[in-house]
């Protein structure tokens, strides 16, 4: 049996597929999200030693931060596929994912600021992780600004794909340099993860919320991709046909 790998690489076949997937991801986002929030609010300890109730921000904060970074990888991956196969749908998906990534970054920064105010007593501190997240936001903004500044679709697709790749090369260097402003002390650089010490119910709720966020990050870019397809392909035969059938 041979698989046609490129079956859904055409906007005309992808559009209905996305239409079928959207309700599935919508239901998954809502159900898993409700379950995760329930677990996070009612099955976890009310008071952690010094964090009181505030620690519950973690159920939004960590998933948003993880998604913000993961979605940049997705943007780069689709840009790369677009450049290699010259597939216009791949660029459209990259364009659809980027705004959600930027929103996740803003959400992570905002919840982080609120959490920081409650537990450290300050809205903002130039801590390496916060700075990295802020820079990631700048890079998302630059990507979207370049995309919207170029009117010719083909040029904007390819130019922003090159920018995303350049960003991918630079981001590790940027993050490393933010983490370690004094290179003489970097031999001992170690950011310890607090994952192992976490209470199991909190961890469970957090991971559930992450899955819910992940589903959301399928849902909204798929919807946005459908809009982009309609906008760009509005003069093709299949779009006209489909819209006439709907009438």
């Amino acid at each position, binding site marked *: 049996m041979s698989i046609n790998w490129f079956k859904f690489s055409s906007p005309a076949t992808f559009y209905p597929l996305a239409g079928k997937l959207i309700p599935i991801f919508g239901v998954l986002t809502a159900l898993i999200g409700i379950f995760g929030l329930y677990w996070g609010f009612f099955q976890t300890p009310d008071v952690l030693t010094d964090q009181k109730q505030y620690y519950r921000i973690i159920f939004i904060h960590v998933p948003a931060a993880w998604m913000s970074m993961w979605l940049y990888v997705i943007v780069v991956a689709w840009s790369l596929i677009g450049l290699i196969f010259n597939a216009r749908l791949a660029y459209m998906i990259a364009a659809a994912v980027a705004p959600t990534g930027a929103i996740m970054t803003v959400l992570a920064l905002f919840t982080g600021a609120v959490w920081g105010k409650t537990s450290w007593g300050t809205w903002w501190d130039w801590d390496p992780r916060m700075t990295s997240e802020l*820079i990631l936001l*700048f*890079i998302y*903004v*630059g990507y979207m*600004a*370049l995309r919207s*500044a*170029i009117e010719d679709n*083909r*040029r904007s697709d*390819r*130019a922003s794909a*090159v*920018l995303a*790749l*350049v*960003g991918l*090369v*630079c981001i590790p*260097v*940027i993050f*490393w*340099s*933010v983490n370690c*402003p*004094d*290179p*003489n002390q*970097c031999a001992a650089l170690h950011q310890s993860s607090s994952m192992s010490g976490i209470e199991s119910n909190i961890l469970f709720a957090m991971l559930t919320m992450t899955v819910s966020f992940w589903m959301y990050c399928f849902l909204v870019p798929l919807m946005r991709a459908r809009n982009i397809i309609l906008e760009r392909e509005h003069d093709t035969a299949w779009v006209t046909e489909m819209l006439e059938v709907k009438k």
Partner: protein
Amino acid sequence: MFNIFRCIVMRDLTLAMRRKTDVLTTMFFFIIVVSLFPLGVGTEKETLRHIAPGVVWVAALLASMLALERLFASDYSDGTLEQMLLTPQPLTVLVLGKVLAHWLLTGLPLVLIAPLVGLQYHLSIESTGVMMLALLIGTPVLSLIGAIGAALTLGLRGGGILLSLLILPLYIPILIYGSGAVAASAIPGSELQAYFSLLAAFLLMALIFSPLATAAGLRISVE
């Protein structure tokens, strides 16, 4: 291949020498920005010494970024750039030549003017030397990374402000280690080797990857 490289560099230098104001404006921009800070922050010796590394590097970042717009713009508007894309010589070499010429005209003047800033900010002789060396290694990286942005935003409306959005975040490592070196030089007995090694590593990396990305960007923009 070296011939075409030299030819491009000489051509850009000649063109720039016929309109010297372009070179001078970048340098004066740098001096003005650096001179504004003491007026805004206050003129106490200690404060100035403390903020000098960051101020100098941020001013250098802005100056080299503002000059970037001109890197390909005039060649683009009169059609020379299209001819360059059609030549049989590799585009990366042409790009490298243009970037080198651009650095000689906008980056090198900043390195040479740096001692003046050292005086304004009461830096010691050693610190000023470190600052010049760091600028000497760091500013070519700024030109190289900036060239990618200049290629991608070629001929766009509001290209300058867009360019800053794309490029300034990518300049952060240079800013951190460039100003880090100057700040560390003020502390007696601190090791500076690592800063210069890192800056030089960035330079090598940019030398390899930036012409490739810039050439790809030019082909996309001019198409």
